[in-house]
């Protein structure tokens, strides 16, 4: 008997009572979702910026290599998506579009189409996500309802910049992934 059969037959042999799967009630709430989302992203050490602020942010931070997968911001970009992710290693800024955001925790849903290359939102030094205000949902239950069973090879809820507190619980922004997350709410 191979290990698969071995494990499955061992489980089958254990008598267990039937336990029904619960239904998830509606936990959505009323309120200004943009305001809630803004609070949440600040709590996660992200930031909301205006579309018009980006050029200034780029100049101020002296970002050199900039990539945009959002057509309306292409004027700010000076590089294209490469064939191999490793070539993204010196990317200063990526501008991408999010599909929708979750007000309760500022999680933003991205799939392969939004990233071009899966490594992009992680390997870039800084990240900007453009998000439509009317795409916001209240909580994670609504979020999964919205995604439903749509197929994507890779999907990501991203909620802030890369961070760690592994050294004496001191919060440090910029562990391995992007050192900042700015969100443009349109």
């Amino acid at each position: 008997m191979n290990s698969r059969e071995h494990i499955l037959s061992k489980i089958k042999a254990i008598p267990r009572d039937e336990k029904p799967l619960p239904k998830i009630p509606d936990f959505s709430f009323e309120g200004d979702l943009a305001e809630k989302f803004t609070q949440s992203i600040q709590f996660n050490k992200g930031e909301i910026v205006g579309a018009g602020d980006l050029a200034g942010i780029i100049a101020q931070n002296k970002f050199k290599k900039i990539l945009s997968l959002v057509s309306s911001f292409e004027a700010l970009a000076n590089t294209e998506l490469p064939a191999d992710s490793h070539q993204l290693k010196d990317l200063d800024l990526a501008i991408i579009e999010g599909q929708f955001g979750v007000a309760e925790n500022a999680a933003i849903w991205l799939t392969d189409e939004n990233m071009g290359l899966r490594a992009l939102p992680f390997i870039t030094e800084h990240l900007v996500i453009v998000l439509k205000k009317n795409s916001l949902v209240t909580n994670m239950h609504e979020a999964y309802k919205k995604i439903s069973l749509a197929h994507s090879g890779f999907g990501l809820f991203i909620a802030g910049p890369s961070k760690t507190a592994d050294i004496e619980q001191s919060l440090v922004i910029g562990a391995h992934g992007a050192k900042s997350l700015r969100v443009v709410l349109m």
Partner: protein
Amino acid sequence: MNHPQEATEFLKDAANAKWHDDTLWFVRDKRDKVSKSVPEWEKLRNLASDIKDNVLANLETYLVEFEKNAKANNIHVHWAKDAAEHNQIVLGILNEHRCKAIVKSKSILTEECHLNPFLEKNGVEVVDTDLGERIVQFLNQPPSHIVLPAIHLKKMAISDIFHEKLQTEKGNDDPYYLTQAARKHLREKFLAAKVAITGVNFGVAETGEFVVCTNEGNADMGVHLADVHIACMGIEKIIPKREHLGVFLRLLARSATGQSITNYNSHFRSPSPGKEIHIVLVDNGRTEQLAREKFRNSLKCIRCGACMNTCPIYRRSGGFSYGSTVPGPIGSILSPGIDLQKHSSLPFASTLCGSCSDVCPVKINIHEQLYEWRQEITKAQGTNAKSISMSIANGIFAVPFAYKLSASMMRGALKILPESITYSGLNTWGKQRDLPELPKETFKDWYKKNRK
């Protein structure tokens, strides 16, 4: 392994023990604040618990469904009945790709299987990429906490080891500076690795996808730059439907660190063109635990670490005192199932205060199971007076001794116990506290007298 003895060691440095205690309480406090901001918190815990009950009742069905859907998505699925087979499977994949260096993100399962030493013996360099895990790897230590692997270390100790391994400035213990040094060092590793290993937080039967949660982004840096992704998953990590992720992702980070969600929640469903994803489904004692009805629901654990942060014993004895891969209250009910002899002191490393059960996001009755294990161990060791006193002499039955005596006997005993017992290794974690002032009468006596 003997928890009281190990705890003695930990408590020798009183200032450090106090700091450890305070640091974990700080995390527990964050969890309290953020959980109170969710009105449906208790409902979510009930839902999570019910979903996991359903999983355990139908585990074989969900595993087969998961396998079928994962395969349809071009994911390779492997099954391992124990740690040895798991390690062989991983090595086999590495050999196939002629890979001699890998990056690995946090996976308690691979710790449990002792994958690192096995791979190293076979000539593979393993780089743990979670910052805390890299720190303890440099020091040749296991993680002391499942979410906060280096929580037992002061920043100067980290500065020293980074100075030695990464040539950082001697004496510079600024957390930002040290983190940036690790970032630079690990970037090179990420860019060079051909194979990346991750753990799994949730596997979804309905879609065949699996979800990995991190804050640092290290799991994703590894897998998206590598050609091959190996995900190691305990069979109990399965959940039925995608919509259930909503429940678990709302609970996990809030319980773990007091965040509303981890910053990266990656859903892997099929590989990028030209790349490979392998998933190894591991039993390693889980089916035995499933068969133990009283201990079954310890398999609901989502490894948030909240029970550790809240536990008065864990906070005052440190992760290493448990001598098991998963320390703390949940480790103390999982480990005896794996090796009763070795871990017989763990169910006694508890005050049975129940705080672990109160914070557990999937409502595991941890403290009740600790009590059940005590019964099992006492049965296994014999209960006659002689064996009890021998056990005490051997330092095995530190606390149970107290629990086995009736309340009034204990009241007497506490008064008359010689210092050699109360302040010996038998009651190590109690050492830092004074013995409680004993009430002159028990509540029951008082109630009887004052009832009228």
